[in-house]
């Protein structure tokens, strides 16, 4: 384990928690991305570990299955030297009547420093954050927000394109149920990118244009001239007649293949938050195209971004912490 090599850069992130991207300023977002950038290099070295968070406890509290995000947070915490505990809250204990508030009380007694929470209900992480003493990172709540995903997407784009400002980004797929879409819309529009959302109207939430995006139901038109094509996962239970008639029909009109991709800029990047449904929302060939697809890179950026977030929420001196911060 190496000692801290340099004095840490000042972090211009002043909130107690990270519950969402909505409401963050461009300066705060940039600050987190800059910090994450510095961790990318560290993660590529043989010795990846620092002692910045030695003695700190991080609890990964997952009310919904997720191997990828949980592993990413676990790795991030361990590389910063923290003790990381994984708690998968079985639905059985929820059904037994333990409420989210009960869980919060239990966790308070454990004195964790950071709580990383995923929950299937929108707003559940906000509710928990009001009740616990530690900092809270939202690792995805219902259809609301998934802020670290948007940050890692932004970091991936920024490293490839050198900027976010002025880019044309298309987000395609199940916008209605997607927390990834919402966090990305907030982040990208805050940073000066133009955002289009592409979906059949059954998967488009009402009033989406009020979030500053341009909706399309024709994927070919929506992809015209885009710098970034961001695909979303469509859950199988939603494409058997409820929101979409069939997988076959969905792929035909909204699956990303080379033909549709040809409408985007020649150097357009393809992104996907994973896990992919090959042949549903994305053609396998496109997904594996090493010149265009940055899907693997997104996973790498994920660890760096989560290190930056853990760092930002724990490094700030106690005196900076507002006693009763709103977020």
């Amino acid at each position, binding site marked *: 384990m190496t000692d801290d090599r340099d004095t840490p850069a000042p972090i211009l992130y002043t909130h107690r928690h990270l519950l969402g991207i909505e409401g963050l300023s461009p300066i705060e977002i940039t600050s987190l991305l800059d910090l994450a950038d510095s961790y990318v290099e560290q993660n590529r070295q043989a010795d990846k570990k620092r002692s910045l968070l030695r003695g700190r406890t991080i609890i990964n509290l997952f009310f919904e299955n997720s191997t990828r995000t949980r592993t990413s947070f676990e790795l991030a915490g361990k590389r910063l030297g923290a003790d990381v505990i994984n708690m998968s809250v079985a639905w059985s204990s929820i059904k037994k009547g333990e409420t*989210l508030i009960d869980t919060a009380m239990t966790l308070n007694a454990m004195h964790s420093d950071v709580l990383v929470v995923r929950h299937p209900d929108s707003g559940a992480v906000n509710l928990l954050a009001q009740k616990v003493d530690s900092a809270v990172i939202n690792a995805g*709540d*219902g259809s*609301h927000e998934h802020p670290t995903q948007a940050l890692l997407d932004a970091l991936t784009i920024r490293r490839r394109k050198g900027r976010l400002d002025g880019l044309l980004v298309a987000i395609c797929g199940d916008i209605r149920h997607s927390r990834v879409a919402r966090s990305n819309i907030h982040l990208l529009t805050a940073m000066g990118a133009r955002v289009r959302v592409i979906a059949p109207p059954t998967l488009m939430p*009402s*009033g*989406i244009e*009020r*979030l500053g995006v341009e909706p399309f139901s024709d994927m070919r038109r929506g992809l015209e001239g885009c710098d970034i094509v961001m695909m979303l996962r469509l859950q199988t239970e939603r494409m058997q007649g409820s929101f979409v008639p069939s997988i076959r029909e969905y792929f035909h009109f909204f699956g990303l293949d080379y033909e549709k991709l040809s409408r985007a800029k020649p150097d357009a990047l393809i992104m996907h938050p994973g896990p992919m449904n090959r042949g549903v929302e994305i053609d396998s060939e496109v997904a594996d195209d090493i010149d265009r697809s940055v899907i693997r890179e997104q996973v790498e950026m994920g660890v760096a971004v989560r290190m930056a977030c853990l760092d930002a929420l724990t490094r700030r001196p106690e005196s900076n912490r507002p006693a009763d911060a709103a977020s």
Partner: protein
Amino acid sequence: MPGPKSMKQPPRPLAFVNARLLDPASGLDTAGGLLAMDGVITDLGPQIGTNGGIPEGAEVIDCGGHCLAPGLVDMRVQLREPGEEHKETIATGSAAGAAGGVTSMVCLPNTDPVIDDVAGVEFIARRARETKRAKIYCYGAVTKGLAGRDLVEMGLLWESGALAFTDGVAAVGNARVMHRALSYARTFDLLVLQHPEEPHLAEGGAMNAGEVATRLGLSGIPPEAEVMMIERDLHLVAMTGARYHVAHVSTAAAVEAIRAAKARGLRVTCDTAPPYFALNENAVGDYRTFAKLSPPLRGEDDRRAVAAAVADGTIDCVASDHAPHDQDSKRVPFAQAAAGGVGLETLLPVTLELYHKGEARLLDLLAQMTCKPADLLGLPQGRLAKGAPADLVLFDLDAPGRIDADRLRSKSKNSPFDGRPIQGRVLRTIVDGRTVFEADA
């Protein structure tokens, strides 16, 4: 009304003096006094208290110039008894009502068991007699077990005291069932109340559809779900000639549909509740479950339309839509939280906002909370008139205050109005000549 009680104890007349008498039924708004004897109003007017006119031995109550009006008749409350007494009981609910100036209330049949038989109606009547605070009536269910299929014994329930019929917080969604309910209700000319929401369109929704729901990642209930159900029912009303009432109207489109139906001569009435003219969907804010109501709080345009329809009388009545829920039902993620808010103690001051803002006339607002619902439901109260029950509220029209949910008398504290500054305060509530509430000095 001489009875055994008056034989035990010689009745003592009551004299309210130095009051501003407000009777929305007759349009009376004058300084004066009111006499009551044996639970009944015996005289009122400017002459009482000024130059005598007070009977010997009367208990004199100096109203200090404040407003003396008929006690409020709240036509839509949930009292949770029987079945959910941890949320509210008839005793706590009527105490809350008394503190809010409500002297009569009508509870929904969505209890456990459901009020869909004579025994249920009689249970409510017995518990109401025992509590002796506000007068408590009930609606019968339209369909057995609120299941939306088979009609209840409407005639028998009505004979035993059910004032009208509704499936409570659920819409009668099946058009054929609603058609039969309205047709059959015509036999006795009974009123049928509808929760106006197309159930399939609204299914799974947690709040009003639109930008706010989209930002919060909550599934939305389109405002059109309301007018769709009303328009369907209006065709059924036209087919049957039945009396039909739309509960808690929350959208501009619904107001328009009802206004047009009234103009066509259909026997249609409606009510709304204070949240729908005092709050909009932004009250949900950061997932505030206390602002989760059914129907959901709507956008600002709808709120304004509802307020305007209260002011112009298109909306006939204002009811509290009192829906108590305990902490366990509300301190959960928004989508899982129960819908509804308590309202008995905030009905009067929040409704008075429309008067204080200059949007509605005082007597009109009082009519919507007294004589209009009373007339609709066939009750004799809700008016200051000789021979009417001495159900009264004395209130200070202007006293400033702030709603403090923790201090509500209701067993549940889930008010969407917590912290709201208000103007107007209930000083005393009288039921059948008995003081059932008196504010602390």
